[in-house]
């Protein structure tokens, strides 16, 4: 039931936790200190690939102040975020596979003793040949994992929807391009940290900066062989996540094990350098795309290939692989679509999910490719996109169900606000504008572990003073999920969201939510909160109807009262209403839940990309380029986003601006770079994230399409707005200088190389020449969905 007008939904309201944040009172994991707490540290591999031939911890154990030392033998059970990729050891057993992989750990009375303890651990290694790149990985010489498909192939996919051969035959123009996206990392300002405490009652409690307390709970249960009921995971406020705190991590398991060993609390806080080795960031992806167009720009077929550099372990990589092929169809109608992808293992820190998970790379390729095709066909960038737009309430060729879709309006608004039509191709040399669009999932349609239970559960308890407590396992990672849930519950119960007690992200106290990933919390936990709040409201309204001797249908809840609308004398304050309800029906508590509808298509791999709703974004970026130095100054970014409905416009704008910022960083400067298998510079000086002086003003435009399944119609905003920024920058640089940098990040040296090439009569392109040879085998042919058949 949607209220005719909103009391709280929509308006820009401060976060419910802002007061603590601005006074230094927010307790992050490393801010914790427990009586008797020890400090843990991990010893890490100096080799990219080696056998461990000997580990001797006796000297470390003998050091005064060292309370425990553990090695891989103490944690022999493997784990991993995906059920199919249980390939990690908390501490390497027998073999190390990347520089920085944890090998042993100590717990000591203080940080300095722990560091000295590490120095006393003797490890002998026998180096093995290393594999550092996608090309090398395909060469069969040395296997990083004994298992898998051989040739260091983690997994390959080949799917054909419809018949691309027919589609290409129908084309008037076919274009092929190759792109490289070099990979980046989250670099949240807070380094990962965890405090574990194993109690005398045999219960383990761990406080961790994690986006996924539920999955950490599962991993600890497995690796520590403790019953889940004896483990409590509490997610502390996360000082930035972006996907970087979405795996169960070695330091969490190790802290727990060390606490079990010593019977004392143990804290492990990663150094900034260790965070770079922990990684799970954006996969480097080499891409090849071939698309057929009619003269008017209509797409007839697309063939997309991706080669992912996964690093040393699986992590989310299997999902990432499919994501690089899944969402191309959510912005454009593609009647015949073929996707081939392969993820390889290399001796580098594992890649995983970073904001946009596997979709910014193909989106960069696709949107640059479309601009190039538009130029071939004499079309402008707006026309070619509008010609192919997906329709609201349609199904894509790969069986993704599109519901509300404001992409057309996003494009119109962003084009109008930026004056794109008057600028594209018309600005003086060195200045240019670029356009790109995108779509993103509002929550993964399936849980990581397939089951029939809800993906999100929320409970609400009301005390006799009218106080409302909301319980949800969703972890606030800075996106404001706690504030969003408070807004939803407050709206339903007519109470100021700031007055609600929010208990979140604690496996002992809160019912399950799968976690803060895949942009799922507003939609899924939001719907669960909505249901729980409505149940509370209905119980209270029934009691008040009884109390006032009226019928329920004339009663409204709002402004802290329950009563007949427009008749203040026939209404009672919320606390009285609550007491009336408790008097009649007992304790006032309710739960709600959300389970996504069944959406998967009839093919293997269809679980990736499905979502109950998609957000849509369009971006225009204006740049001023220094043709001599290659420096690209972004003047302004306009970003229109179909949010469904903004539950809190301040938080929505914050996510848009933050997504644009992160996109600009990836587009122009950020790279998780290596020399062979060794990180080039694991520090915030060497990893170039933009400063105050490197970012432009951002104009956010909210498009509201009111999704029928979202809470109050809301969709996601945490990830989508990043996606179009990167190709829009690349397209703007092309508009400004006439050069095509088909490789991200677009650093000044690449721009200068392209300008020099142009000056010598070349094409002015910098980018990869080709993708490696790989036999994807026969594609799994999938018939197009019924409604799309000719």
């Amino acid at each position, binding site marked *: 039931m949607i209220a005719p007008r909103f009391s709280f939904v929509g308006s820009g309201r401060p976060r419910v936790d802002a007061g603590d944040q601005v006074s230094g009172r927010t307790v992050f994991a490393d801010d914790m200190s427990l009586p008797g707490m020890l400090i843990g540290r991990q010893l890490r591999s100096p080799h990219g690939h080696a056998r461990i031939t000997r580990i001797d911890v006796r000297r470390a154990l003998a050091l005064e102040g060292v309370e425990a030392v553990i090695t891989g033998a103490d944690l022999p059970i493997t784990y991993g975020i995906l059920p199919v990729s249980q390939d990690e050891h908390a501490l390497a057993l027998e073999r190390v596979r990347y520089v920085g992989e944890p090998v042993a750990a100590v717990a000591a009375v203080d940080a300095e003793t722990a560091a000295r303890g590490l120095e006393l651990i003797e490890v002998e290694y026998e180096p093995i040949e290393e594999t550092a790149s996608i090309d090398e990985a395909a060469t069969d010489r040395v296997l990083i994992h004994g298992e898998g498909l051989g040739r260091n192939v983690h997994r390959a996919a080949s799917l054909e929807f419809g018949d691309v051969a027919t589609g290409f035959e129908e084309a008037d123009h076919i274009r092929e391009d190759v792109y490289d996206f070099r990979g980046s990392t989250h670099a949240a300002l807070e380094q990962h940290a965890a405090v574990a405490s194993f109690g005398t009652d045999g219960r383990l409690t761990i406080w961790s900066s994690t986006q996924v307390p539920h999955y950490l709970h599962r991993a600890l249960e497995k690796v520590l062989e403790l019953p889940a009921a004896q483990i409590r995971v509490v997610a502390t406020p996360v000082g930035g996540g972006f996907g970087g705190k979405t795996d169960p991590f070695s330091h969490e398991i190790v802290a727990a094990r060390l606490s079990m060993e010593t019977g004392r609390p143990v804290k492990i806080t990663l150094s900034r350098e260790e965070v770079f080795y922990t990684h799970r960031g954006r996969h480097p992806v080499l891409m090849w795309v071939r698309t057929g167009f009619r003269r008017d720009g209509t797409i007839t077929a697309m063939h997309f290939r991706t080669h992912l550099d996964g690093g040393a372990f699986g992590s989310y990589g299997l999902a990432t692989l499919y994501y690089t092929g899944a969402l191309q169809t959510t912005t454009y109608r593609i009647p015949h679509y073929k996707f081939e992808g392969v993820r390889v293992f290399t001796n580098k820190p594992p890649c995983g999910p970073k904001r946009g998970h596997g979709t910014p790379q193909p989106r960069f390729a696709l949107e640059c490719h479309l601009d190039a095709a538009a130029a071939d066909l004499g079309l402008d960038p707006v026309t070619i996109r509008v010609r192919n737009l997906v329709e609201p309430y349609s199904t894509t060729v790969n069986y993704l169900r599109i519901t509300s879709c404001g992409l057309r309006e996003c494009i119109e608004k962003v084009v109008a606000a930026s004056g794109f039509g008057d600028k594209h191709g018309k600005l003086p040399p060195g200045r240019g504008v670029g356009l790109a669009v995108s779509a993103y999932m509002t929550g993964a349609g399936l849980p990581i572990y397939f089951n029939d239970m809800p993906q999100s559960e929320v409970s609400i308890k009301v005390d006799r003073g009218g106080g409302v407590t909301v319980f949800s396992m969703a972890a606030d990672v800075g996106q404001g999920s706690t504030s969003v849930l408070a807004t939803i519950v407050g709206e339903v119960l007519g109470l100021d969201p700031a007055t609600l007690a929010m208990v979140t992200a604690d496996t002992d106290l809160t019912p399950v939510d799968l976690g803060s990933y895949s942009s799922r919390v507003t939609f899924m936990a939001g719907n669960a909160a909505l249901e729980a709040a409505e149940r509370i409201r209905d119980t209270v309204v029934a009691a008040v109807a009884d109390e006032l001797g009226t019928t329920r249908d004339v009663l409204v809840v709002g402004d802290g009262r329950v009563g007949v609308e427009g008749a203040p004398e026939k209404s009672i304050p919320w606390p009285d209403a609550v007491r009336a309800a408790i008097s009649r029906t007992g304790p006032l508590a309710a739960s709600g839940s959300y389970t996504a509808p069944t959406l998967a298509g009839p093919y293997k791999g269809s679980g990736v990309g499905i979502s109950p709703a998609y957000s849509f974004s369009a971006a225009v970026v204006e740049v001023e380029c220094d043709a001599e130095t290659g420096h690209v100054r972004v003047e302004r970014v306009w970003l229109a986003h179909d949010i469904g409905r903004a539950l809190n416009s301040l938080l929505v704008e914050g996510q848009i601006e933050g997504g644009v910022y992160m996109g600009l960083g990836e587009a122009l400067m950020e790279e998780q770079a290596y020399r062979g298998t*060794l990180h080039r510079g694991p520090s915030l000086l060497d990893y170039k994230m933009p400063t105050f002086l*490197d970012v432009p003003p951002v104009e956010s435009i909210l498009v509201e399409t009111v999704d029928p399944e979202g809470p109050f119609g809301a969709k996601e905003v945490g990830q989508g707005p990043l996606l179009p920024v990167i190709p829009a920058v690349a397209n703007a640089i092309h508009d400004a200088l006439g050069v095509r940098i088909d490789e991200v990040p677009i650093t000044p040296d690449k721009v200068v190389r392209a300008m020099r090439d142009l000056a010598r009569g070349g094409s002015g392109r910098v980018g990869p020449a080709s993708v490696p040879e790989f036999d994807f085998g026969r594609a799994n042919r999938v018939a197009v969905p019924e409604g799309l058949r000719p």
Partner: protein
Amino acid sequence: MMRLPAFSLLAASTLAEAVEMLRDHPGSTVIGAGTDLLPNMKRRQVRPATLVSLGAIPGLVGIRRDDTGGWVIGALTVLGDVARFPDLPGALRAAAGSVASPQIRNTATVGGNLCVDTRCSFINVTEEWRAASGPCLKAGGDVCWVAPKGEQCWAVSSTDLAPAAIVLGASVRLVGPGGERTIPAADLYRPDGIDHIAKARDEILTEVSIPPLAGLRSTYLKLRRRQAVDFPILGVAAAVRTGDDGIVEEARIVLGAIAPAPLRAAATEEFLVGKRLTPEVVEEAGRIAALPVRPFDNTDLGSRYRKWMTATFVRRALRELE
């Protein structure tokens, strides 16, 4: 959190005492603000057992005009004060204002920046990282990973102030056990990434003197990926005096952050004297300046790019001084 290795901190109250402390404690070193030294110590690039703090010594802070019309800047003057001091030559203010971040400029000193350690992507990393790569020459190993065939360390001079100071003809005063001496700022540097400062360990840089400008106009341009925080990956300081007819009477150009020491672009200076700064002359000056430059891939962005930018930045500096 990375922590400092243990050391003793001695606070000197006079220069003489500081010199004595340095002499009496082998392996000791001076600390000004420590914004360069302390990160290097956290990474265990250096591990002095004793630090001699100069902070309590009177007279080392401040900027004053001397009786010749030049300037004297105390070694402990913070960079922010240099950048904000309206009267100082343009190159020096620009260089000081471009260092790192406002917080660092609030404490980092002139002396510290002039003596800032050379940098290289193989040395400005943790002990654990260096163990993975194998120690380089500067880390006590026997190979330079940047140029493995040679025997020289190619760590990059990373001071912003030095190129500016050198083109302005600055000199530095050094106080040591044997008394004091004043040397041209240019002579403070050696083309060796390890032993890059021509100053004894127990000598203290106390002040920088800049002679009167006598018509010199100067500027400093800095190349880096971001507009803040980053060290230079090329710094071009230029000072030019032209006559009323626009003809260059004197030109000084120094390239920073491109080699183990600031490089004087002597051939370019020679080429410019007697010419007007026409577009053609400026173009050629850039070409000449970049000719002998051979940067390595040991800092940010590529070596080829930094060589190309040497020409570009020299031209831009000269255009500013036209």
